């Protein structure tokens, strides 16, 4: 694979990032006066990036496969001795699909936000942050070295923080933003340590240098790098054990949940591992750790999604679970990388559609998120209902909807590795069927359980058109990528692809998976559509109660991290107040007390002063005499 310099249309690739960045700068620096036109500028910059992305894709498809990695050096960033890092972009097949996902889904969500945020007094700020996010995310996927990737990584973290806490007057939103930021810091420590380790081992942090000499490094080093990158990915992608922030992140406006916490940013961890595939291919333990983390998260997300009554939190649980599938696929190695990215793309589209659909429902229901107060909305919100159903069929994996193709490939790849991993993936697919059916049944079917002042209505066209486009994407994207786009051959030069034989024919796995999904869906249908849904949540069994509390994720974090930190802080305060202050104050008190006694010698009685002078002189004399003797 040769690295080509950027020529022709490719020399414009920096504009992909620069446009939304400029939009963010204008919107955030002009302040309130851009409220009227700012949102349109935000939409315009991202759409322009999307158009440029499509043009670059067409240009890239015209190139021979081995020339599709193109770099552009914008600026020599760090230059110390023989270590240099450039502000350089790398456009290849992997970053290309990410650019398209980010800019196109990003544009649709920007357009949707025009309607969703129409009455917000700070909407220009919202669009400014969204533009900032798009720019940072594009930087993340276009960087040609880990240090620049880290800049984008932090940039999306900041944008995520700002957008989760967009309604910061709500205490819960401000707390959720801080929680997301702090938990992400834990993961970022992993990424920064991994970068340092790469620099020490390879003397460079560019992708080409690191991957070129990866096989020369010891397996222990590669395992360490792999585990540190996994920590980073777990933080950003809300994987176990750093998953707790994602559910609270739903405090942000719904378009944010759709763009950042479903379609793009949370998949950055998958990108990181897929991009670092050379490291994981040579570090079996690290790859195994990825699989274990992924399997735990798949089930955690699915169980949480099955119990939440808040529609956005149920979707967030589902996002965790689906990203778990992608992580599982990247953990499987070359048999899975391609399908991880494939599922990432289809998931990015259908989950964005589902979130925007949920936002549309909330928009009509006075921002109520409790699914127990929904019901029978299919007749009043027809477009939302139909597009949501497209997303629903896609996520549970019913053919020919897009999720079927990608998830089925992952499950198949899991069976190539072993029946246990494959079986777990199939079981989780069944749970997916259950919780998504539950969500659809509670929202759109059954009887009306609306609040008395709720007057549900279909959202304006500016919101339904993105929904329709994403609904179409949920339906056709999988087929388009697989049959027309030939995603395996497209990504193979970057992430590698190989297939291993499985004991059963492919159709058998499809059949098993579909059987599980249908059984799960039927259970969900019987429980939540055929029976009455109580408005007050029933007590539930122990698993439901645990899942409502995020499987005690917060409690565990509290017990393992927050409480010990508090105790340590209290101990340090005690040490500071009693020992350090005690020493300082004590010595001052001693000096003060002694002074209080010694000043009594200042009696104002002149002859006693004279006596002490004489005494002093006599002492000096005696000392002199004694020394002489």
């Amino acid at each position, binding site marked *: 694979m040769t690295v080509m310099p950027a020529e022709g249309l490719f020399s414009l690739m920096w504009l992909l990032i620069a446009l939304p960045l400029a939009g963010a700068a204008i919107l955030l620096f002009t302040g309130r006066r851009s409220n009227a036109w700012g949102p349109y500028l935000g939409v315009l910059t991202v759409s322009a990036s999307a158009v440029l992305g499509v043009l670059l894709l067409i240009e890239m498809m015209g190139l021979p496969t081995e020339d599709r990695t193109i770099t552009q050096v914008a600026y020599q960033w760090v230059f110390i001795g023989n270590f240099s890092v450039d502000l350089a972009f790398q456009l290849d097949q992997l970053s290309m699909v990410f650019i398209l996902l980010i800019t196109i889904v990003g544009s649709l969500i920007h357009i949707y936000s025009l309607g969703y945020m129409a009455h917000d007094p700070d909407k220009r700020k919202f669009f400014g942050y969204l533009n900032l996010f798009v720019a940072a995310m594009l930087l993340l996927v276009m960087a040609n070295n880990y240090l620049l990737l880290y800049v984008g990584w932090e940039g999306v973290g900041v944008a995520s923080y700002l957008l989760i806490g967009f309604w910061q007057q709500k205490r819960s939103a401000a707390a959720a933003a801080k929680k997301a930021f702090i938990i992400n810091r834990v993961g970022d420590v992993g990424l920064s340590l991994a970068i340092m380790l790469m620099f020490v081992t390879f003397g460079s942090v560019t992708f080409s240098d690191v991957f070129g000499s990866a096989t020369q490094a010891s397996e222990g080093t590669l395992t360490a790098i792999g585990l540190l990158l996994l920590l980073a990915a777990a933080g950003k992608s809300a994987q176990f054990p750093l998953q707790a922030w994602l559910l609270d992140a739903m405090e942000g406006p719904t378009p944010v949940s759709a763009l950042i916490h479903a379609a793009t940013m949370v998949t950055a961890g998958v990108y990181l591992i897929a991009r670092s595939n050379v490291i994981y291919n040579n570090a079996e333990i690290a790859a195994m750790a990825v699989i274990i983390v992924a399997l735990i998260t798949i089930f955690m997300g699915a169980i949480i999604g099955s119990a939440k009554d808040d529609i956005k939190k149920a979707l967030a649980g589902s996002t965790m679970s689906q990203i778990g599938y992608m992580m599982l696929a990247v953990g499987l190695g070359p048999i899975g990388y391609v399908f991880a990215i494939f599922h990432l793309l289809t998931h990015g589209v259908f989950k964005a559609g589902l979130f925007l659909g949920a936002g549309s429902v909330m928009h009509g229901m006075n921002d109520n998120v409790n699914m127990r107060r929904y019901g029978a909305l299919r007749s009043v919100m027809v477009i939302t209902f139909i597009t949501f159903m497209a997303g629903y069929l896609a996520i549970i994996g019913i053919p020919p909807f897009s999720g079927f193709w990608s998830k089925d490939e992952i499950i198949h790849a899991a069976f190539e590795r072993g029946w246990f991993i494959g079986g777990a993936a199939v079981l989780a697919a069944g749970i997916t069927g259950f919780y998504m059916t539950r969500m659809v049944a509670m929202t759109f079917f059954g009887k009306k359980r609306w609040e008395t002042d709720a007057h549900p209505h279909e959202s304006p066209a500016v919101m339904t058109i993105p929904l329709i486009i994403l609904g179409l994407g949920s339906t056709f994207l999988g087929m388009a990528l697989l049959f027309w786009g030939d995603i395996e051959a497209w990504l193979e030069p970057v992430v590698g692809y190989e297939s291993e034989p499985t004991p059963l024919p492919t159709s058998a796995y499809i059949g098993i998976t579909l059987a599980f999904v249908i059984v799960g869906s039927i259970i969900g249908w019987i429980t939540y559509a055929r029976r009455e849904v109580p408005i007050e949540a029933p007590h539930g069994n122990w698993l439901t109660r645990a899942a409502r509390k995020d499987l005690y994720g917060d409690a565990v974090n509290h017990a393992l991290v927050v409480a010990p930190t508090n105790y340590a802080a209290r101990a340090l305060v005690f040490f500071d107040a009693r020992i350090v202050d005690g020493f300082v104050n004590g010595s001052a008190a001693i000096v003060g007390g002694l002074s209080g006694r010694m*000043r*009594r010698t*200042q*009696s*104002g*009685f*002149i*002859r006693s002063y*004279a006596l002490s002078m*004489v005494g002093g002189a006599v002492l000096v004399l005696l000392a002199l005499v004694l020394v002489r003797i």
Partner: protein
Amino acid sequence: MDPIYYIYLATLLFSIGAIGVLVRRNAIIVFMSVELMLNAANLVFVAFARMNGNLDGQTVAFFVMVVAAAEVVVGLAIIVQVFRTRQSASIDEPNLLKY
């Protein structure tokens, strides 16, 4: 005459002066005792100058006299002022400047 006797004399004068300062209450007498101590020191300077055969000690003695004259002026002025305000020359009574 052996110059050591001057040293004895000076020690005697200094001791008388020092005891005078310590035991007397009248400011004028205390002041005189201080002068006595200064002159005892002068006598030692002159005696040592004589013993060592150079003039440094004698020069210092003149300096001491000049300083003593200046000190007498200031000291007597203070004593007169104190006497005027308190109608007393006792040095034990003005004891306001204390802890």
